[in-house]
């Protein structure tokens, strides 16, 4: 798993948005969510986006991950121009390069933790043994080695979110997107999740982009972007990011 940061292109950002605008139209009402937004996300870092509700954080995340089209501007991910990819190519891009963690855990009730992680790997063209090896390793990495055979109904909220992280991690993605991954969890579990995300950025060189308005998470991030009304208000780097100060999750 300790792959060298394969996109160690220090001079090129992992994600780049240039002059991105996005509006939603429902009926006669037009909501300008993002307005001429320009942004670079550096590779191998945990970047946190925070801001008030409805300011467009999730929309920005879905645009940077190629889940949503933009009205104008351009988005580059790992050097690819996302606007030029069709639906198939976008799926392919996501399969090869991205992982997701959502607020809801979105686990199949019928599958064990191990199968949840193995399932997407089956579609990546890996051999069965390789898929199983990766699934086991990433479940071990999130501290669920002893919970692999359990179904979601038998797991706690924090464990479910860790399964979801393992599912994203097992793909060994260069980009990991997380939207409010801790908001359904209590403080301790939230802490563990953000630690985990940070560790993934450090040890795997993964670019982690996380949306949250949980102020406790700020000190764990390498970089914090404050958003309001579709604009980036501030962009700062907390002085001493706490690396693994809370030990390994178990």
């Amino acid at each position, binding site marked *: 798993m300790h792959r060298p940061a394969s996109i160690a292109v220090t001079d090129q950002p992992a994600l780049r948005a240039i002059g991105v605008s996005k509006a939603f139209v429902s009926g006669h009402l037009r909501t300008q969510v993002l307005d001429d937004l320009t942004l670079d996300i550096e590779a191998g870092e945990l970047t946190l986006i925070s801001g008030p509700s409805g300011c467009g954080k999730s929309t920005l995340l879905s645009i940077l991950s190629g889940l949503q089209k933009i009205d104008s501007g351009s988005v580059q991910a790992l050097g690819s121009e996302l606007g030029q990819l069709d639906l198939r190519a976008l799926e392919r891009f996501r*399969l090869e390069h991205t992982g*997701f963690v*959502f607020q809801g855990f979105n686990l*199949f009730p019928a599958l064990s933790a191990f199968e949840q992680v193995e*399932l997407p790997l089956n579609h990546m063209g890996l051999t069965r043994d390789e898929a199983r090896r990766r699934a086991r390793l990433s479940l071990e990495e999130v501290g669920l080695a002893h919970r692999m055979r359990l179904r979601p109904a038998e797991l706690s909220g924090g464990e479910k979110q860790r399964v979801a992280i393992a599912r994203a991690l097992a*793909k060994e993605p260069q980009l990991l997107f997380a939207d409010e991954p801790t908001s359904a969890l209590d403080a301790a579990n939230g802490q563990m999740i953000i630690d985990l995300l940070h560790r993934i950025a450090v040890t795997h060189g993964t670019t982690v982009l996380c949306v949250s308005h949980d102020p406790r998470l700020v000190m764990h991030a390498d970089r914090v972007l404050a958003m309001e009304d579709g604009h980036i208000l501030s962009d700062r780097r907390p002085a001493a990011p706490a690396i693994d100060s809370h030990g390994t999750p178990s």
Partner: protein
Amino acid sequence: MVALARKTLVYEWRRFLPAILAVGFAGLLQLLQLALVLGIFGSTSMYITGSSADVWVGYPGTQSVGSGRSIDADVESRILMDPAVTRVEPYIWVDGDWRGPRETGGVSVFVSGIDTATDGMMFSRVLSPALRARLDEPDAIVVDRSALDQLGVGIGQTATINGHQVHVVGIGSGLRALGGVNVLCSLDTARRLDSDAEDVGPTYLVAKLRHPNEARAVARRLRGDQAFGPYTAWSARDFARLSVLYWLFDTGAGAGVLFLAGIVFLVGAVITSQTLIAAVNGSVREYATLNALGVGVAALRRVVLEQAFWVGTLGLLGASVLGIVLMLLARSQDVPVILNVPAALACIILVMGLAAVSGLAAMRSLRRADPATLLR
């Protein structure tokens, strides 16, 4: 591969149960109505299936056994000339009007005049040799047990057919007819009972072949010759099918079967597709997550179709078990039910088609599995 479709089906079986039941009942209904119709209308080809002849020769254009016309008796020698044929015998069909000893009114009867020799082919599978021998006696007849009440006779009693006196010398079984009553007698008796002056030859000539599996080819060969006036030939199997199909569609029963099959299909498909759609909707966020992770829409569709396939298979399995039990029950109660391979295949196709259509309908609701909706 993680068997998502199968594991979900097993884990959430309660959710899929209505679909499995709908598919199962659709299959069962279809199976039973087909078996019943085939059982009832199968008796219209009993003359052929109950006999050991391989080839039938009759008037061209004949649509069912009961609607034959007489052919030239000399055709017999032409058929005997064919090297594949080992034996030929005439079969005379006479429509008769029965007047019994008791007050039954007129009953329409189908008189079958047959060769009474011990190796006679006609009805050899349903008529015992002893009964056949008794038909040698002039004006002797045999009727089916089930028709005794209808005819108002018992064994040893006399009645008239087309004004000629006949007497009942035996009672057979498996000789039921549709739309009338079968009466068996010798060829001589049948000729006497025939009141139509135009009928000079036999209604059919039936032939036995050295190799029964050549029936089709021999029938085709015999058809070519027109030397003895109009006649044609069928293999026994083809003629039996012709008879059953004629009755199916002449009586409208065939249309009824198709109509009911259509309704069963529609109702089954509505219930099944609704259940499958609900199942897809219940997992739509998980499907969307897989799509976000790059699993293609095509692969997700395959999962839904596979679920439909399993629902169809399980329904079919249930329908088969119940169907066999019910058919055995029907048989034990003398209800005529017959199931053959084409009918069973038709049921399987209907059920799997129903499942496939429902799966395709459910696939459409995968469109709601848009990963962008997970980010709000």
